[in-house]
């Protein structure tokens, strides 16, 4: 199991009292309802099914260990995403991931102009996941995180801002550029 700063997996406001009655405390149900989101984010963040499998296991072990401190002040899904994102980001850092983007690289993406409004057409093959992964791999980690979060329509922009620790305006601005960059690169993978 990989190591992570314990503070990153602490539930918001977890320093005090026990869980209120409304806090979800059925671990099995949490896994059943949110396991797909956690695995998918880990898969697309890390780009490797075996690593994503290990990461999903590690995230849920952390959840299990900290569940009694979850006070229900935030949505459980928000809390899970925060743990997952922190865990994956720590793994990426520890691997000194092969695609390190400098600020200069980010600037290229932010000024790039892509046909973001036109539909994305995909000839259905088993390669779809591979094309998505290739596209995400070349985007800055920040864009990757935001796109994976916004793909979960149960998350509001406020919740995405909370998970990624920035303002809602910053989330909106970066998402605009992230969508453009994704669409532009995705078309080159066909």
């Amino acid at each position, binding site marked *: 199991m990989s190591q992570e700063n314990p503070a990153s997996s602490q539930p918001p406001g977890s320093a005090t009292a026990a869980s209120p009655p409304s806090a979800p405390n059925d671990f099995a149900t949490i896994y059943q309802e949110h396991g797909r989101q956690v695995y998918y984010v880990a898969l697309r963040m890390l780009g490797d099914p075996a690593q994503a499998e290990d990461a999903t296991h590690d995230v849920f072990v952390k959840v299990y260990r900290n569940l009694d401190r979850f006070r229900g002040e935030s949505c459980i899904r928000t809390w899970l995403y925060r743990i997952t994102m922190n865990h994956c980001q720590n793994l990426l850092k520890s691997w000194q991931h092969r695609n390190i983007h400098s600020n200069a690289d980010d600037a290229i993406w932010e000024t790039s102009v892509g046909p973001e409004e036109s539909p*994305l*057409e995909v000839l259905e093959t088993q390669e*779809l996941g591979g094309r998505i992964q290739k596209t995400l791999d070349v985007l800055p980690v920040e864009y990757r995180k935001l796109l994976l979060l916004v*793909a979960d*329509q149960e998350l509001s922009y406020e919740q995405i801002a909370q998970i990624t620790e920035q303002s809602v305006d910053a989330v909106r601005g970066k998402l605009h550029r*992230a*969508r453009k960059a994704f669409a532009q690169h995705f078309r080159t993978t066909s």
Partner: protein
Amino acid sequence: MKPKNPKSSSSKPPSEVQLKPDASQEMQQVLTFETVEELLSYDRSETVIPERIIRKLRHAMPGQDILPIKPMGAETAWKPRAKD
């Protein structure tokens, strides 16, 4: 909003149907996604969750009755986010 030609288990041909080798191209569907979010949401719904995760979690937490992850049904298919 769903892709215009969504892949679903119901739309897949039965496994016993044999396709001619040269028919595969014609049988391919073109999916159209209006947004990146919609594409990623579809990708998530199609992603297979390894059974091994459950086995490892059950091993780590013997007392927990961990069941397989629920498949994403039509009710969880992509719909545009409400403006917030």
